[in-house]
């Protein structure tokens, strides 16, 4: 199978539509603000998209299984707060060196509990991860004593979020690319990847084919937790500190990005490249809304509508619109 053939197989209809929409949005934005199409601006967009891309990578695997991870808002928080607060647990020296791995590990721990609950206790993922989200929130609130977190991000964290190991490519983007490449390889070429799709299709058959499905589910939840925590680490590096509810704005965009990228919410179907397209689409959409500023136009008409209203309404309407184009479910026959 030639390289171009392999690449072509990654794209399905949904992915192509998503990428097409990205281009359309860029063109619309460029009409208002020509700088939209400059390389500098595009790289900036990709930089912002990376934060969402990392967390969406993990959640996508869980959705492929036919489950969902609603614990990402506070797992992101845990990642950020545990990384910035690592010195409190590991001491002044190790706490700085191991800040990032510590934060990610804490996220993986949350993922482990999620995985055990869903795979071994057979609890419905929606409710269990919802509960874990609340538990994670409670633990973080307890950790900070109810106040805003006081710890600062380490040098390395800042570098990870803001710097460029490779000239021209922001580090978060680099991380996303590496992560993405690994996931694409795993999903297409590895035994685990096959099993993930299969479990999303029909877990009963997978069990009777002699596969331990519980381990597959556990692995994906651990990965999801780790990715979310990594996003938290990056966010904390970006802002130079962690802050309350830092992960809250990520739940809807993450799920939307994955679904818009063509992954079936019931599991068993979806390409990673689609998620990439969905992430970029959501990011561009959000950027456009802050640039285009429709509320100024309405204000001129004498109607006072907050900026946030447009952000929310347009966001929701666009998602519904795009899904109506290619996200419709099969009719029950």
């Amino acid at each position, binding site marked *: 199978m030639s390289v171009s053939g392999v690449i072509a197989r990654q794209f399905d209809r949904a992915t192509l539509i998503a990428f097409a929409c990205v281009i359309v949005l860029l063109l619309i934005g460029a009409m208002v603000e020509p700088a939209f199409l400059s390389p500098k601006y595009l790289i900036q967009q990709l930089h912002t998209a990376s934060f969402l891309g990392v967390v969406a990578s993990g959640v996508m695997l869980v959705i492929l299984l036919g489950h*969902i991870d609603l614990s990402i808002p506070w797992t992101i928080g845990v990642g950020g707060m545990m990384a910035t607060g690592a010195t409190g647990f590991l001491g002044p020296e190790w706490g700085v060196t191991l800040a990032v791995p510590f934060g990610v590990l804490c996220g993986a721990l949350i993922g482990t509990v999620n995985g055990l*609950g869903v795979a*071994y*206790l*057979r*609890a*419905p993922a*929606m*409710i*269990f991860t*919802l*509960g*874990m*989200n*609340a*538990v*994670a*929130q*409670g*633990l973080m*609130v*307890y950790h900070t004593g*109810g106040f805003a977190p006081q710890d600062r991000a380490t040098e390395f964290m800042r570098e990870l979020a803001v710097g460029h190991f490779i000239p021209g490519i922001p580090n978060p983007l680099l991380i996303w690319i590496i992560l993405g490449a690994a996931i694409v390889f795993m999903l297409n070429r590895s035994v685990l990847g096959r099993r993930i799709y299969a479990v999303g299709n029909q*877990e*009963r058959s997978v*069990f*009777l084919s002699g596969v331990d*499905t519980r381990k597959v589910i556990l692995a994906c939840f651990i990965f999801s937790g780790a990715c979310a925590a990594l996003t938290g680490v990056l966010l904390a590096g970006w802002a130079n500190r962690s802050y309350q509810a830092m992960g*809250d704005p990520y739940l*809807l965009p993450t*799920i*939307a990005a994955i*679904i818009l990228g063509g992954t079936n*919410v*019931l599991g068993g179907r979806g390409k990673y490249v689609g998620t990439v397209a969905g992430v970029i689409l959501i990011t561009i959409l959000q950027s456009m809304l802050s640039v285009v500023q429709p509320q100024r136009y309405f204000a001129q008409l004498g109607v*006072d*509508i*907050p900026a*946030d*209203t*447009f*952000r*929310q*309404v347009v*966001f*929701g*309407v666009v*998602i*519904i619109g795009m*899904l*109506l184009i290619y*996200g*419709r*479910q099969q*009719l*029950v*026959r």
Partner: protein
Amino acid sequence: MTVSSEPADLVSRQKYFGWVGRLSAAQRGILIAMLIFASMFIVYGWKQAAGLTPNMINTAANKGALLALVAMAQTLPVITRGLDLSVGATFVLANCLASTIVVDGPIATTFGIFGVLLLGLACGAVNGLIIVYGRLQPLIATLATSAVYFGIALAVRPQPGGSVNFELADFMTRSSFAIPHSVLLLLAVVVFIWIPYRRSVLGRAAFAIGSSEQAAYMSGIPINRAKMLAYTLSGLLASIGGILLTALTYSGAAKMSIANEYTLNSIGAVVIGGTSLFGGVGSAVGSIFGAFVMRTVGDLLIVFDINPVLQPLFVGVVLLVAVSLGSLRVLRIKNRLDIYR
């Protein structure tokens, strides 16, 4: 000669648990939720320094009723094996609108109430249309509409404020003979909305759809109409909750955290109340008790002198425990194949 085809565990269930074993799954769920709530409330009252005063009961009832209404709203779509992540947003939107139009004299107030209820119906209907005719997955569709409804709420009430007709607010939130009016409101909703719904053809169809949509289709059940009704009524119930919130706070506020909190807690209440997330089984009555359980957790924390800031932790743990209890059946199975539905 016939071979016994009675499943073994049905017979043993009846033998060991008597009348309890013969209850339907939904009724068992309600019973459990009731027991949990009763025990929690008793502990709460016992630990209270002042004891169970009517005032205290009134406050607890009002808070619980708010979540109970949103939980009832959540129950209907869940029965069809769907989900409505926009109930919190509809709740907040109704609150904001009520703080704007349920004001002044009795006539304006009445029109205002109708307006808000109509809005609730509309929100639910839009959800229904997108899910039924747009054929979008409920989770993502309602996630998107929640953003839209919240955005509209922001447009109605950019800043917290507004007011409400004082007589109405007082009437809705006080008690007569120590019985809180909010509880009577819940009772009225159950008697005039839930029970007729459950006993109607379309209401039962909702259970059928949740049980097996394929079989429901093959049985000729009007799937589209049943789902539309479920989501539309859901919006209505959420808007009733919004009016009650306005009556309690005398204002409207478009806070994302409130919308999220009520949506997520409504799911928890529904689960604790015995409604299955897989659809086909459940009751709004159970969800009422589930809501009160969730609310009482916070009160118990205060009474036991635990930092109330830890409420999310305990709510989360309660949720995890509730859902794990349901998973105890995993321990009892004798054939591993049965774990995988």
